[in-house]
């Protein structure tokens, strides 16, 4: 839905497509984010991130090949790691825009796209299957 990209900046998923079943939720989240603050009481800088145009659909056949079901694919499911960011991509028209917007938030890191169609049809993308371990202080 939304991700902190630094102390006071939040990337949030957004679409102008009112027929997208997630549109209502995205709108509500944006309103909630607008009234949210950091721990220090500072307003959030909000950066919209497009969702895949027309959505991403399941590709497997699991005995239901005539159905191609809508998935919850979004670009906000990226992983920030040392020196790089792994961004899920879907062969979609909006892949490039999303990579660029995420790249602007992490100017010193390489933005690496991972084809995540097969993964997202199982319910998640890159962030869902990774867990970072921080260095000790």
């Amino acid at each position, binding site marked *: 839905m939304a991700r902190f990209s630094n102390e006071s900046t939040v990337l949030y998923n957004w679409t102008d497509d009112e027929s997208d079943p997630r549109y209502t939720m995205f709108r509500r989240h944006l309103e909630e984010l607008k009234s949210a603050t950091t721990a220090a009481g500072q307003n959030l800088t909000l950066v919209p991130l497009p969702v895949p145009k027309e959505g991403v*659909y399941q*590709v*497997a056949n699991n005995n239901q*090949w*005539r159905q191609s079901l809508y998935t919850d694919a979004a670009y906000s499911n990226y992983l920030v790691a040392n020196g790089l960011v792994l961004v899920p991509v*879907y062969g979609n*028209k909006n892949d490039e825009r999303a990579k660029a917007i995420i790249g602007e938030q992490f100017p010193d890191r390489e933005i690496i796209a991972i084809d995540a169609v*097969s993964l997202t049809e199982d319910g998640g993308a890159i962030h869902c299957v990774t867990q970072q371990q921080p260095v000790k202080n």
Partner: protein
Amino acid sequence: MKDRHTIPKASGYYQAAEWEAHESTWLQWPHDKIYAGYQMNLGRIWLEMTAALGLHETVHIIAKDEQHLEHIAYLLHFFGLDSQNIDLRVIPTDDVWARDNGLIFVVNNKGDMAITDWNFNGWGERFNHPLDAQVSASLAKQLAMPLFVPPLVMEGGALSVNGAGAFMVTDSSIINDNRNPGLSKEEIEEVLQEYLGVCHFIWLSGAGQVECEKWGDMTDSHLDIVAHFTAESTVLYNWTEDKSDPRYPMFVKAYQELQEATTQSGKSLTLVALPTPADGVHQVTNLAPWRVATLTDGVYSNYYTANKVVLVPVYGNVNDDRARGIIGEQFPGREIIGSDAISLIEDGGAIGCVTQSQPARRYKQNGHRTYTGH
């Protein structure tokens, strides 16, 4: 076994339609010559194709060497596919495009089968693929089949036949100095008649190189991204209402040309529109600098018809389901299997480009063709 002095037509040979009964399917397994660091993106697709096709026909898998063969055998075992009807053999290859390497099987009604070898030159000498150009000759030797080498350069993806005499092709991918300098349309038709036993031609314009580069097409617009016979007089054609799609003018022209076209017996074609992926399919990797996020030539017409199944390339796109439904209506007795083809299409082709069918042998007393269509 090379026989340059006789022509296949003299022995009654012809190319069967893809949907007629198969003996088998040929695949060239991906390896590191072109795809170092990328094989795993592709290997998954080959495993899926092997699993689906192997239920109903033999799958011939070409490994590039003994080590590659052992690796594939291990993969097939690991994924539980080694009990299927698989023939694994070594022939050196450069790449994966079994459709295009020049191999086309021809049959006659006396139970004979031969190989025609269409002098693959790397899609108009864009790529240096000398090993792939030798696959047809190597196979003729290994299978002890007659080999015919026509005086023409052509890839299998450039054409579609209905198995009853009609041959559909794009001008741009064959009447082209990068493949057949100086040859006229009439001269090309004569070769096709002699070597594939066809008698009627449907020429679609295709697209020039400048247009093709807009969607990363290195084939001079093969027919398999434009249209496809699905029955003797039925053609699926790619269509989009999106005028901003750079392929739109090509699709409009092809549709107009198809409306004028007929079968070998003069009958009008039944034309069935197949949507293209909405907003196109875009490249996904960053492994090599030339792979940037550009539009690919991802379409659904690049499917493959086999015994009891049809493998349809899908892309996670909103139109996947519609396309599978439309193709399914053309092949009601077959299971329609979607294959996630994003990793493949960003390299320039989809399922139809990496498969090559070997028809079943035909035995028939009278002079007529044994037509095994649905």
